[in-house]
């Protein structure tokens, strides 16, 4: 009966829809009664992806873009910090996100980078396609992630200047006219076996992502010099910094029913209905590094 089918689809009880070509016996999607076609649409993205991909994997090795190995290493490290070996999310109260997406710049403009990288001044043209971000995923924090592979031994401290500008000019439909089309900031850090440099670009990208922008096109000029301006050591020769274009990291709060909501589980535990706090201020850092000031923070205070 309709109610049961709807019940099943509402609960998205992992029922998968049988695809049109139900020829292959291998296909796990055959296991389920036809009446759950609507259930498929409400499946958690993971099961949807897996059932489609699972199906593809059986039917044909559909070409798939391989992720960048450095990006994969970073995300595996993030996974280890966020979940136990069994895959259960760690009860870390300051960790507000339930989704983290890492995008590498689109391939078609990658070779474009090569001739743009002049010597130590890295002016790169980046285009990120954010089609995978769903409407129910709300941005908490966005970070440009440079993998720091210095080819020359560097002194302990490095100062980098970064100049970001958005390449889009069609701001006709812009939601917040005061969108900073360009921002410049510097950050100083110690190089001690440091593989990654995270540049917080939340306030810069938030307006674009909030207007559901599918493509973000920006130019980044990233220069690093050894030495520390505070100690007015004269800045020696620029170091040969990360020659790879940065990745874009989005910390998101997926508000869909299938995603895990910490405040929800806290509520169950306390048995007191807790209203989910509206997260207005985006500068609340979801990754919980309260102490660490972001470069924006420094710039803002300056």
């Amino acid at each position, binding site marked *: 009966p309709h109610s049961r089918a709807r019940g099943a689809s509402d609960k998205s009880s992992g029922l998968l829809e049988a695809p049109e070509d139900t020829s292959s016996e291998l296909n796990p999607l055959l296991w389920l009664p036809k009446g759950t076609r609507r259930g498929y649409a409400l499946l958690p993205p993971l099961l949807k992806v897996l059932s489609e*991909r699972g199906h593809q994997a059986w039917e044909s090795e559909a070409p798939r873009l391989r992720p960048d190995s450095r990006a994969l290493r970073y995300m595996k490290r993030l996974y280890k910090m966020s979940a136990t070996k069994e895959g259960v*999310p760690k009860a870390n109260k300051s960790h507000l996100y339930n989704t*983290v997406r890492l995008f590498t710049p689109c391939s078609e403009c990658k070779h474009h980078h090569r001739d743009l990288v002049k010597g130590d001044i890295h002016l790169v043209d980046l285009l990120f396609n954010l089609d995978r971000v769903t409407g129910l995923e709300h941005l908490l924090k966005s970070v440009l992630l440079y993998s720091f592979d210095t080819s020359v031994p560097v002194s302990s401290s490095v100062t980098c200047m970064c100049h970001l500008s958005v390449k889009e000019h069609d701001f006709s439909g812009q939601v917040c006219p005061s969108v900073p089309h360009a921002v410049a900031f510097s950050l100083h850090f110690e190089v001690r076996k440091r593989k990654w440099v995270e540049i917080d670009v939340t306030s810069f990208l938030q307006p674009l992502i909030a207007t559901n922008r599918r493509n973000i096109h920006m130019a980044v000029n990233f220069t690093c010099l050894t030495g520390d301006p505070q100690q007015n050591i004269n800045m020696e020769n620029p170091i040969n910094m990360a020659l790879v274009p940065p990745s874009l990291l989005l910390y998101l709060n997926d508000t869909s029913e299938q995603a895990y909501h910490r405040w929800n589980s806290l509520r169950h535990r306390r048995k007191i209905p807790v209203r989910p706090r509206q997260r207005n201020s985006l500068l609340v850092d979801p990754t919980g590094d309260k102490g660490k000031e972001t470069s924006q923070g420094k710039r803002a205070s300056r």
Partner: protein
Amino acid sequence: WRRDENGKEAPATSPSNLSEYFKQFLFPQNECELHNFRLSFSQLKWDKWIIAPHRYSPQYCKGDCPRAVGHRYGSPVHTMVQNIIYEKLDSSVPKPSCVPAEYSPLSVLTIEPDGSIVYKEYEDMIATKCTCR
């Protein structure tokens, strides 16, 4: 102390045997409870997209639902009513079933079709408690 058939005092059973002995009366065999199940995504050939975790234990609930389910499983009174209907009125109405009552979430690291990488925490992916409904 029990006396065996020729009146001699039989050795008392130790408390642990005693509880085992009485258990057969209190808990029917294969009663509804949580069972372990562990899978690795490579068995399903999904390890190309699921980077972590390598193994996943969704667990499952299996077993018979005793008639007096209220106190032990936190089942609603409806469960006993359904059992009475099944036993006394209409056996086409199904007996109460042994199903999960609580879950815990699972964090998954997957590769998307466009090559981007996503870390996601999904609700209700591991059964942690069973009930009769």
